[in-house]
């Protein structure tokens, strides 16, 4: 999944001369938390709702007035993304830099923005939770061909896989969560066990064990 698929457009931007009051109103009205700051058509900074509130708070050592420009409170060194970056790279950068948004820049202009919420939405899409699906959890050996064996099991049964999430469990095994387009997950789990897969969910009924 690429940044261009999840970024929001058009982007609401302001200038360094925009006042705190205007910036605050914009954040409220649009229900957003981040405003890229543009100067002469070029990205000059980012200001967040927290920046605005703190700079104008009585708790700030040198509080600004609502009529002051936001220039002094914006972050001037901005971390950005390219539309073709993979979203996991965007997420890694945002975590490493502890920032909540990435303006998406192409040819020096801001073409979109992604926030941590867009990444959460992406996670939901990756997990396939927007479809009516059944969920299976299978433990695979961490060797080539195991995932292929698993997916072809479903292919042979004409069962459509809506999403696959895999992650290493740290003990040489790969936990694989599949969302499949059927409500017959219990019979599928039985068939998987017969085919020598380790199915973590659905479990056999405890009173039959």
């Amino acid at each position, binding site marked *: 999944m690429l940044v261009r698929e999840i970024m929001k457009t058009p982007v609401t931007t302001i200038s360094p001369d925009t006042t705190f009051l205007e910036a605050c109103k914009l954040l409220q009205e649009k229900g957003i938390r981040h405003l890229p700051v543009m100067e002469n058509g070029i990205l000059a900074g980012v200001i967040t709702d927290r920046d605005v509130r703190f700079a104008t708070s009585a708790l700030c050592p040198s509080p600004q007035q609502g009529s002051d420009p936001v220039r002094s409170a914006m972050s001037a060194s901005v971390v950005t993304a390219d539309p073709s970056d993979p979203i996991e790279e965007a997420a890694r950068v945002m975590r490493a830099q502890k920032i909540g948004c990435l303006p998406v820049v192409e040819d020096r202009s801001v073409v979109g923005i992604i926030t941590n919420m867009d990444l959460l939405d992406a996670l939901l899409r990756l997990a396939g939770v927007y479809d009516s699906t059944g969920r299976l959890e299978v433990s695979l050996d961490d060797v080539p061909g195991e995932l292929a064996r698993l997916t072809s099991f479903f292919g042979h049964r004409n*069962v459509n896989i809506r999403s696959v999430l895999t992650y290493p469990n740290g003990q040489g095994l790969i936990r694989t969560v599949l969302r499949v387009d059927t409500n017959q997950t219990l019979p599928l789990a039985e068939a998987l066990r017969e085919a020598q897969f380790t199915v973590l969910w659905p479990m056999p009924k405890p*009173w039959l064990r």
Partner: protein
Amino acid sequence: MASVIYHPEYRRYDFGEDHPFTPARLACLMDLLASLGYPISAVEPPVASREEILTVHGEAYVAAVEALDRGESEAGAMEHGLGTPDNPIFPGMDLAARWLVGGTLHGARLIADGADTRVLQLGGGLHHAARAKAAGFCLYNDLAVAIQEFVSRGWYVAYLDIDLHHGDGVQSLFYESDHVLTVSLHESGYYLYPGTGHIHELGSGSGRGMKINIPLEPFTEGDDYLEAFDAVVPQALSWFSPRVLVVQAGADGHFADPMGDLALTTRTYQALYTRILDLAARHTEGRVLFTLGGGYAPAVVPRVWALLYLTLMDLPVPERLPEDWMVKWAHVLGPGAIATLHDPDPPYPAFAGGEERRRRNRNTVSRLLDSLSRYWF
């Protein structure tokens, strides 16, 4: 006493051999009731018209079903949820599904016209079907068409879904409606199809607070299920004041069902049916429309639904199953089928984890009631 609705054409709703949602379930049930000395005397409903289907489904979807039914191009089948292992395409599926809808709709009309208060539709319960999509064995949403019939007459409807699975189709079709309360008890969507039915799904717009979900832990047993039911359903009905109850009475929450992980017994089901009739007496002057639904253990489903029938008809519950019926259906019931209407007591060996399941379920109910209290009081 209740009116029973059934038409032989229901048996056409058949996805083929090896599909779990088989009409054999009905044949076996009706034969059991006859062997018990209660042959069904049913009202035969008319088939639902295309227009009646369109009261809840999109035109493009219905047209796609009809085209696939005629064997025309399968392009676009998948986007409508058709041609999948759950919903294979079969000739005559449009008409077969309309028969089931016709039955449930006819039941609604009997009640709305004042001809009867208690109605059992021996079929239907296709609660997964969405506006433009077949899902989970469900082609057309008979429940939603029936509910819409009540709503079009200005009635307030409480929909109660005791199927193993979340009643997602009905919930989504009336998500914004303030005329329809939906309450679904089901195995949690964290574990089971369709993956929805969480406590924060409360409806939207003027229907906010009128969509209620009670997702239960896998392997939840009867007592805990009834505790959750008692904590939510009576309160919800007294708050909403419906004029009629519509109940999807799926039997797949039974412990022996091959599709899921709830651990209800025949005794749980009988207790549920009694509670629902009591609630109808208290809140809707007895008006209640039952449909069937899921239920996939051949040796269980006829017993559970026979209990439903006997309870609705105020008939005594015999202890033993008729021998002639056991012999006739042995090939379906499978080896070791028990000879009593109720499950043995205890129904299964005790198993671990009950305390944690009870803690989780009670916390679910308590968090749900906290959310609802914002809208109810």
